[in-house]
């Protein structure tokens, strides 16, 4: 009986503590600050890779922690990332058709 009760409690506790969420938000705010700084500071050849990396890090952090994908069933991750992957693939192909990636 205890096991069933514990499982029930666990179902409600997927995620982090409120303090954990606040820490994640502070990190996200700091990364946003860094992103904005690229508008004022010349990062040279690092400009584009740095911006794209920060964008991906923010995206993954929100999806993993705020949307609980890190703690939830892998089926949810599969559904979302398959949609995302399909979108990236299809539209990269479409952009390539229009020679978008050729400088």
């Amino acid at each position, binding site marked *: *009986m205890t096991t069933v009760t514990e499982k029930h409690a666990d179902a409600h506790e997927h995620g982090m503590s409120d303090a954990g969420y606040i820490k994640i938000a502070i990190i996200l705010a700091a990364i946003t600050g860094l992103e904005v700084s690229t508008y004022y500071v010349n990062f040279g050849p690092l400009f584009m890779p740095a911006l794209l990396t920060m*964008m991906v890090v923010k995206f993954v952090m*929100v*999806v993993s922690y*705020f949307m609980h994908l890190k703690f939830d069933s892998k089926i949810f991750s599969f*559904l979302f990332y398959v*949609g995302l992957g399909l979108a990236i693939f299809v539209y990269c192909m*479409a*952009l390539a058709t*229009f020679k978008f990636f050729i400088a």
Partner: protein
Amino acid sequence: MADIATHDTDHATDHGHHSSTGLSNNKLAMWLFLGSECLLFGGLISTYMLYRGRVQNGPHSSQIYDIPFTSVSSFVLLMSSLTMVLAVSSAQRKDDAKTNLWLVITALLGATFIGGQVYEFTTFYREGLGFTTSLFGSSFYALTGFHGVHVSVGVIMLLSLMGIIKKGKITGDKAEVVELIGLYWHFVDIVWIIIFTLVYLIPS
């Protein structure tokens, strides 16, 4: 044994319908919906990327974008994700008062973001960028406008949820309902994370 059977019945009542995987059908549907939304926004973003430099009439992006203003808007939307996850956390603890408080704050932050977008669109229009001025203008307004509509729908959902919670009309698992709307809200936020970088920070 009887205890376990009773518990299972309670559990089913609490969490609504579950699929054969043991997962909530509602959550599965929401994640599937969000996966399909990636395709919608992917189309709009790639169209913008293709047309952002196509300006025959009207101003270029570099002439009208107000990065400090948009940065503040982005920060507001990012913080609304924090308040939303705190609302979900409160709902899981069955703390209705705090859930409502965080939902109100989230809705206010969302409304602030929308207000900022209305101001931005008005300013751009006055500076000569209409929807049909150039391909850049059309793709910009289509992309950011669609996102704005999603945020507005999110605000309406948050306000409706508060009303439903106050009237006690949620018969199933309240925390799951809050979580589902939270998933939609966070999705709107991650789309903006991409738009902010690709549209505003990377010059055409």
